């Protein structure tokens, strides 16, 4: 989808010690907006599960806005590029 861009979804504090459960929760959040687990799996890029809870996924602006309104989601922001020094 040309209109999809990578967004980073911050879900704040980790709600579970088991990383697998944290990853599952990320897929559930994404699936609730994209409509299916399959769509969530295709869109998901990374799960952040050690330092904080969150994920990076390919989302349209509308989807990003919807996710930002879900409970437990702190912020949804776009990916950016950095340079070497």
């Amino acid at each position, binding site marked *: 989808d040309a209109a999809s861009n990578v967004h980073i979804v911050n879900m704040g504090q980790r709600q579970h010690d088991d990383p697998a459960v944290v990853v599952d929760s990320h897929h559930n959040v994404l699936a609730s907006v994209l409509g299916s687990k399959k769509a969530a799996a295709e869109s998901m890029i990374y799960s952040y599960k050690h*330092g*904080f809870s969150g994920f*990076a996924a390919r989302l349209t602006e509308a989807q990003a806005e919807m996710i930002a309104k879900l409970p437990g989601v702190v912020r949804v922001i776009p990916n950016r*590029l950095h340079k070497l*020094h």
Partner: protein
Amino acid sequence: TTRSWDYLSQSLNSPGNLVNDGNMGEGIIIGILDTGIWPESESFKDEGLGPIPSRWKGVCETGERFNSSNCNRKLIGARWFIKGFQAELGRPFNTTENVDFMSPRDALGHGTHTSSTAAGSLVRNASYKGLALGIARGGAPRARLAMYKVCWNIGGGQCASADMLKAFDEAINDGVDVLSVSIGGSVPFFSDVDERDGIATGAFHAVAKGITVVCAAGNSGPFGQTVENTAPWILTVAASTVDRGYPTSIMLGNNRTILGQALFAGNKEIGFTGLVYPETEGLDTLEAGACESLSLNGTNAGGKVVLCFTTVARRIAVVRAASVVKEAGGVGVIVAKNPTSSVAPCDDFPCIQVDYEIGTQILNYIRYTRSPVVKLSPSRTLVGKPIATKVAFFSSRGPSSIAPFVLKPDVAAPGVNILAASSPFDPFMDNGFAFHTGTSMACPHVTGIVALLKSVHPDWSPAAIKSALVTTASKDPIMAEGPRKLADPFDYGGGIVNPNKAADPGLIYDMGMTDYIQYLCSMGYNDSSISALAQQPTKCPSEPPSMLDLNLPSITIPNLRNSVTVSRTVTNVGPIYSIYKALVQAPMGVEVILRPSVLAFNSATKKFTFSVTFVTTHKVQGEYYFGSLSWSDGIRVVTSPISVQTEIIPSYVDN
């Protein structure tokens, strides 16, 4: 690194220095976020290293031309992250168009360079075509390396925040002790709680787990307010020179010999040959002789040496001039420019830098001589006392544009003309090694030192390590390039890093999560952003705490009106029974009152809180003035840089 570690008093054959006391970093794991690694480099051989630390949970990911056997007891982990970058690119990354590998293997050479600078094994007789000959090694040559490849070979190396966050996340879990990040953004910067920054937020989580994160300050100097990676939990490194130069003889036909700077490793000198300056007539007489737009139309440059002038600080002017002269059949170029210490090779073609004064003298010789000639000799390596240390022209300067209350950069370290391992695809590589320049090169010097400090003081927090480095750094007499002036804290923070003194700082200004949350509250970030970052429910007080009271090892007051009092707490990490007396160097026009001025530590008193009151006498909107506060027990000197700017009209900008 064939000079930088000796310059920092870390010679392996000198007992009693940090590299020996820290057992060369044995047992410490350094994570590097960069362009990958060339594992076959001699710098990553694992001879003499013991088993991999049992706490290590990382992996050696496979991929294009990289398999698990590429890891060893030196390179104990390697991962690669490209999904975020590829998504930004909007198409698959074409590794034929831009040579790279879908694996942790490094094409650009940057990650190999930084890794070998931080923790490379010893490689004897390393040089660039005979220049800078010596032992190349990392600061912590027995430390282990883990590469997290997050940057890809497009436009000089680009890295996506989603990938960097993932790398931080994995590195935290893998068990690294130190992270080295020679990456940054550009003005305007994202806030400390914005994941787009990728580094500030990733670093926060790492620091929360006791991992020190060392970052490059950026290469946007010498302009003020350009320093990057400014979060107070990050250790931000500026770039300085070492005491090494590459004098290159220019002998004019009138027998005058001038020593310029170059990395010209030719075996033979270029005997007396014609010397020209492309001067034109017409409206713009100077354009033809400007290195960046050098035009040799109408100038017979064949077999000759060409002189040009440039006001462009960046290397592109030299590269362009060398290319144009070479194409015209010339045999060398002399570039007159604002003096900077950074030089780079021009593919075995002599491109010699001189300053404007010398350039003008050569030009006058050309203008007033019937047949000007010149003889060029290969560069030599000169080390030691005659060469002064300078903060590099390009090194980004403070104050921080995000939080001017937090002094940045923190320290400076060697980052100019550093010879270290590189990738065979690096066009500047010779026999495995290449010169590179940047705050990218300064950053892993400090990373290596942090590894050594961790080895000696495993219980020190990232803030304690930073405090030790800032308060013991060497200050004077050090100049800053562009334009030349005495360096100040916005150039080099506490000063040039001094590893041996940092190992025994006496007192430290420690900080923890509570302090960082205090900072975030002071910055006015909302509770939910702070809670998300801090991984704990946070409610800032209705009256935000003063940013000035953050327990930093420096004091920066960007808006002093009349007077203000700040407080700090020091922790004694030296002998239990110690008495420290204060010495204050007040910034010009500012009165400094310290209470108390003597600190007596004993077995029951390990910490002291003191206050410093600043009273300005300036009656006009001021520039920054600098001073220092030192505590000394007669042996150790714990110095905090002070920077103060008087503010008469709030939020008024005229500089």
